[in-house]
């Protein structure tokens, strides 16, 4: 059997495996998907909002936090990282108006969210510390529905259900769908004790553990992945509250989307590198999260290489045969060359595609939103046929930028 076919079958098996894994985890935990424990007591909570040039959204972010129904929320530290727009002015006005809001500004632009977050964390005295991006808007009950998980002493952090705020452009709608799939699978991974990221739009940590692991790694461009791995490596857990809904502004242009994904991937590479010694060791980080990251990336890159190889060969052969055909004055394509006896591998591919598609449709129906219309068939098709296939290319570009040291927040 050809080596490419062996690799193809290996991919098919892995796709089936993860589809079954997620299905089994979902079926066995269906009643707990939307469950959130009611907190036995009120934990004091301060929230840090890092801000850089967010004049359009910062006020709305702070106001959405102020409207939270969580009674333990004491202070909101908005840290301006020396914005060049009017962000700091807005923050100061908010601080004057609302007692809970504190306006902070770094001494110089630190250029990274992690630095601004750590700066703000120095002022926090509460039991829990929360972080919200300056372009994200937690719902009124988002915090209160996350706090109960902290009754378990082993829980170091709680992440939330992050959804796209803006959905008018195609690229935004694709991301909106992607965010749902990511959130759904992250919750499922939570049942396997394998949540690998606590994203910036809303993440809450136990302050003493946050301090114990040294806060955010300022060298890492995805500090939210790094701190999650850091906490897990110390033997703690990160949970997800599907009922803690946060809306965030997603990139509206492909260029910004591409830049964001490059940053995510580079951060992932940095984090894998930092925790590589734990690869295949005991615990969910070493035995599942790191291998999951490494192998899914490896699979993506190898898949891309194989696709490029086979498509490249076909294009060159077609090009050469066209030139030769013209030279020999014969037809460039004949009907009898069209193969109407497809390979069984095509059927496998179609079968897996249908399963994947059904999974995405299921996720859409599971995460209900009153505020937005359900994604249409075009968005679904664009997501499964185009959006997911460009990922390996972005990954490859990220490795290139990482190797050249060209990356920033």
């Amino acid at each position, binding site marked *: 059997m050809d080596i490419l076919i062996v690799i193809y079958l290996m991919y098919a*098996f892995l796709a089936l*495996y993860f589809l079954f*894994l997620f299905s089994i985890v979902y079926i066995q935990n269906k009643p707990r998907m939307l469950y959130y424990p009611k907190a036995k007591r009120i934990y004091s909570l301060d929230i840090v909002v890092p801000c850089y040039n967010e004049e359009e959204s910062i006020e709305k972010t702070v106001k959405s936090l102020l409207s939270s129904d969580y009674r333990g929320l004491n202070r909101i530290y908005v840290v301006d990282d020396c914005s060049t727009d009017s962000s700091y002015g807005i923050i100061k006005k908010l601080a004057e108006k609302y007692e809970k809001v504190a306006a902070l500004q770094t001494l110089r632009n630190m250029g990274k969210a992690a630095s601004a977050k750590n700066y703000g964390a120095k002022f926090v005295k509460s039991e829990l510390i929360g972080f919200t991006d300056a372009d994200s808007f937690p719902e009124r009950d988002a915090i209160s529905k996350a706090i109960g998980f902290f009754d378990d002493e082993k829980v170091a952090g709680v992440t939330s259900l992050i959804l796209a705020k803006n959905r008018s452009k195609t690229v935004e709608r694709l991301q909106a769908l992607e965010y749902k799939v990511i959130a759904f699978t992250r919750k499922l991974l939570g049942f396997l004790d394998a949540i690998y990221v606590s994203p910036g739009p809303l993440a809450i940590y136990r302050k003493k553990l946050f301090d114990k692991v040294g806060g955010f790694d300022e060298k890492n461009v995805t500090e939210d992945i790094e701190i999650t791995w850091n906490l897990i490596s110390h033997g703690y857990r990160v949970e997800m509250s599907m009922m803690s809904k946060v809306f965030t502004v997603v990139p509206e242009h492909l260029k910004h989307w591409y830049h964001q994904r490059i940053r995510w991937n580079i951060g992932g590479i940095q984090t894998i590198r930092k925790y590589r010694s734990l690869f295949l060791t005991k615990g969910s980080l070493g035995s599942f999260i790191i291998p999951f990251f490494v192998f899914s990336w490896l699979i993506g890159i190898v898949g891309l290489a194989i696709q490029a190889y086979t498509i490249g060969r076909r294009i060159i052969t077609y090009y*050469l045969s066209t030139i030769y055909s013209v030279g020999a004055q014969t037809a460039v394509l004949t009907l009898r060359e069209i193969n109407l006896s497809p390979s069984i591998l095509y059927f496998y591919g179609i079968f897996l595609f249908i399963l994947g598609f059904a999974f995405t449709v299921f996720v859409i129906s599971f995460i209900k939103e009153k505020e937005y219309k359900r994604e249409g068939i075009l968005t679904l098709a664009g997501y499964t046929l185009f959006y997911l296939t460009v990922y390996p290319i972005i990954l490859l570009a990220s490795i290139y930028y990482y190797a050249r040291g060209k990356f920033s927040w």
Partner: protein
Amino acid sequence: MFDNPKRAFLEAFFLALIVFVFGIMLGISFENNRLVEINDYYTLSEISLMDSLALNGMVDLDTFSCPDLIRNNIDFADRIYDEAVTLEKYEESGDLTDSLKLAHRKYDILRTILWINVMKTREKCAGNFSSVVYLYESEPEELEQKATQIVWSRILFDLKQEYGDRIILIPISVDSGVSSLSSITNRLNISGYPAVVINDKNVLYSLVSAEDIKKYLK
């Protein structure tokens, strides 16, 4: 947290394995069905070949007829040419088993016997027909060779369409390890592939137009 994460991993593994193995078995049976179809064709072709060989053996008898022999060779060549196209398409899409490759080898032997038969026929009968034997490699590594072979197929197909019964077109894959074929190609001093042998005399290596080939035909 999941009560027993290890169990979920194992359950998923076994479920995936069951579906995967079922899929592979289904695929193998699917490809085997195609092999059954090819084998049926092959049996019919074998019958035609036997008929042709029997006619060849009748040379010394009174009932011997050159037009019959030529007609028979042409019919047989046309039959296995059509079957070659089907076989090639099935072979292209046969990924799980190598059984079609074996069928291809059998056909190559059959085609070589046909070629030998045509050579003998030419010695005995001075009919108005030409033989065009297309020698190619079934799995060329070089893309240039692959493209050249694609174009040769097109040219020869055009030629066959135009000349019909006046040419016997025999495509033979040279990498099947058929020793009688190697013996013929050595005798004709064939130095590379693809090669087109016209009337067992003229060997073409570079692509030419159908018009240029016509110069060598009867």
